[in-house]
């Protein structure tokens, strides 16, 4: 069908202007129409007697694309049926894909981190929409002028709430060899952590200039990643910091349970290098010894990951990023310990949750910024020490905890920005405290409730325990803001 298409042809009112990409399964055209800016039309490559991958993949994309939203996917415009000329028309994203940058690899740490964070945000947005991409690779990542990553090509993707047309269709693993996750090699298609693995493989490539697992072209070659760890990035590029190696190798863990449990958690790590707990992964400079590999290999025999998640939504829900916002000086001991109890309650239900303990260091709008001087540094360290002291009784391992001393003249807006930028799922914050400063500032918690794009739990000490008139304004024990 597609073979006959040439520039100038008109399909359902779209004029084919230029062939912009010819892939093995589809052709991309730049098209024009009277009522739209330039658009892209994708047409499947259908050959007689061919295996139906291209066609089914195209149908999968036709099912998934219309229900995706947000800046991290191309806007869907229209699609045409197989009865005539099958096509999908979508927004045109100018520029080149991340693939173009592979020629410049190794990239510096700053660029890798920035690109990684953008992809993590895009993946998290996709996962929140019940979709696992399952073919994340540099050529499927584009960027908007504003910097956001845009994921393209959903031909191998899986939507939790739609029938998986690909599951029964093929007996071979689907995906792209250098990036495909171990569970995809085992033909498991319902684990969003597969995309975390692919993200690790992309970051590895950007940092080292080489592919973590080469480009195997056999099933046994693909299976190797179930037990063989890649050469550590720092062995290939000594300028790769230990924390970045930790993040990359953690994404590349063969067992999805050992990886970051959500893309938002990768984002949190990339954005807070100083807080990444360094393990053996960060330190190693050569691949694991034969004994370790042999042990891992034994485990993979006949392996399918038993606890593969049933749904993307569930995996995301079980792995929230929780922020606890603390004003240690301005809060009573009773409130601080109640916030701790509440945080424990949130955590007991979510083994995959991450906690970010946040406090805001208030700077004056007018006065000279004293945080830059010696006294300011000391104060910041002091806040950090207080946060750690508060969190210690929670008994959370380092890998699940980060601490953040933020700064700004307006604590509520600093907190809300943090929540937004890190795609936080849940905020725990104390109700207005008793300090004179708080009285002067007004209620931070009320503003966080109103302005945060997620659930906010406001913790309040029962009146009998803490008799104070300030609390009267705070009426919500628990409020949802969205």
């Amino acid at each position, binding site marked *: 069908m597609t073979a006959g298409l040439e520039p100038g042809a008109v399909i359902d009112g779209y004029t084919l202007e230029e062939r912009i990409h010819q892939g093995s399964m589809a052709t991309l055209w730049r098209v024009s129409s009277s009522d739209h800016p330039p658009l892209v039309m994708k047409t499947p490559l259908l050959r007689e007697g061919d295996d139906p991958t291209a066609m089914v993949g195209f*149908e999968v994309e036709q*099912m998934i694309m219309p229900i995706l939203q947000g800046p991290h996917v191309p806007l869907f415009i229209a699609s045409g049926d*197989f009865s005539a000329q099958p096509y999908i028309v979508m927004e045109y994203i100018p520029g080149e894909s991340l693939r173009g940058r592979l020629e410049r690899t190794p990239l510096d740490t700053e660029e890798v981190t920035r690109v990684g964070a953008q992809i993590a945000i895009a993946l998290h947005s996709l996962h929140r929409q019940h979709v696992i991409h399952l073919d994340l690779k540099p050529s499927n990542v584009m960027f908007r002028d504003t910097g956001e990553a845009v994921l393209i090509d959903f031909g191998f993707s899986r939507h939790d709430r*739609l029938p998986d*047309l690909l599951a*029964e*269709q093929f007996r071979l693993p689907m995906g792209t060899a250098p990036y495909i996750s171990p569970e995809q090699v085992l033909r498991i298609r319902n684990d969003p952590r597969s995309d975390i693995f692919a993200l690790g493989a992309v970051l590895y490539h950007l940092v080292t200039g080489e592919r973590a697992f080469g480009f195997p072209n056999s099933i046994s070659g693909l299976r190797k990643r179930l037990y063989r760890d890649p050469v550590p990035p720092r062995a290939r590029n000594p300028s790769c910091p230990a924390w970045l190696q930790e993040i990359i190798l953690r994404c590349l863990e063969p067992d999805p349970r050992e990886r970051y449990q959500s893309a938002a958690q990768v984002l949190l790590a990339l954005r807070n290098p100083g807080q990444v707990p360094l393990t053996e992964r960060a330190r190693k400079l050569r691949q694991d010894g034969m004994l370790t590999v042999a042990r891992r290999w034994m485990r993979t025999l006949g392996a399918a990951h038993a606890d593969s998640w049933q749904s993307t939504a569930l995996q995301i829900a079980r792995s929230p990023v929780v922020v606890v916002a603390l004003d240690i000086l301005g809060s009573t001991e009773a409130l601080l310990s109640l916030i701790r109890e509440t945080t424990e309650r949130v955590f007991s239900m979510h083994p995959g949750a991450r906690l970010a303990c946040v406090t805001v260091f208030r700077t004056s709008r007018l006065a000279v910024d004293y945080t830059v001087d010696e006294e300011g540094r000391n104060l910041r360290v002091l806040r950090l020490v207080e946060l750690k002291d508060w969190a210690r009784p929670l008994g959370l391992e380092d890998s699940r905890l980060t601490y953040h001393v933020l700064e700004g003249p307006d604590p509520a807006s600093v907190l809300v920005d943090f929540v937004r930028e890190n795609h936080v799922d849940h905020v725990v914050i104390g109700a207005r405290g008793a300090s004179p400063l708080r009285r002067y500032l007004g209620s931070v918690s009320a503003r966080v409730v109103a302005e945060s794009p997620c659930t906010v739990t406001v913790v309040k000490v029962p009146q009998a325990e803490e008799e104070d008139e300030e609390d009267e304004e705070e009426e919500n024990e628990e409020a949802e803001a969205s």
Partner: protein
Amino acid sequence: MRLALLTDLHANLEALEAVLEHARRQGGAEQFAFLGDLVGYGADPGPVVDRVQAAVATGALAIKGNHDEATTRGAPQAMRSDAARVVTWTTEHLSREQLAFLGGLPLSIEQGKRLFVHASAVDPAQWIYVLSSVDAARSLRAVRARQIFSGHTHTPGLYHLAANGSVGVFKPVPGTPIKLTAFHRWLVIPGSVGQPRDGNPAACYALLDDGTDVIVFHRVPYDAERAARKIRAAGLPGDLGARLELGG
């Protein structure tokens, strides 16, 4: 046009009215297809038949189910005893006109690429259950239609059959639009309006946009307690009421 697909109503007036209301108000349904088993089990066969008959008078489709047939011809030997008892009761509680309407329903209706049939299309009069992807593939292979809409199993389900013979089953998530793509063939079971059996007591139906081939499965909570009370008050087997409240 948006077509609401309702099956296995089973004389449950409360469930039917809740579904019709939902389909018209929230779903924007413009037409209806009733996929059989209008009666049996429930305490309101007359009012349910009347509503379906009124809809058919304005263009709705309706086909016959095994309970409808038993009500007009007498329960077959193979029928479960509680069902058979209700069949006799139902026959007694329908007018001659209502029985004639049930008796006159077709076993299947084919409209272009779509086939509406109560059970498996392999042999509609045999009332074969479609409970697995193998059953679904058999039903699809028995006919030319690209899409089959059926009931009988009381559990929502969606099956797809590819050109290479591979078949898949999917448990629909209520409220999610699903495109019935053209390369595959599809078998749609909306689930029962009047007696859901998947552990969720809410009534089932599906809404098809016949222009875009997009289908949405829905669940509609309704006053199952009232429907159950009526069953007990009518002297019908109490279990039939209890299962409405449990959805199983």
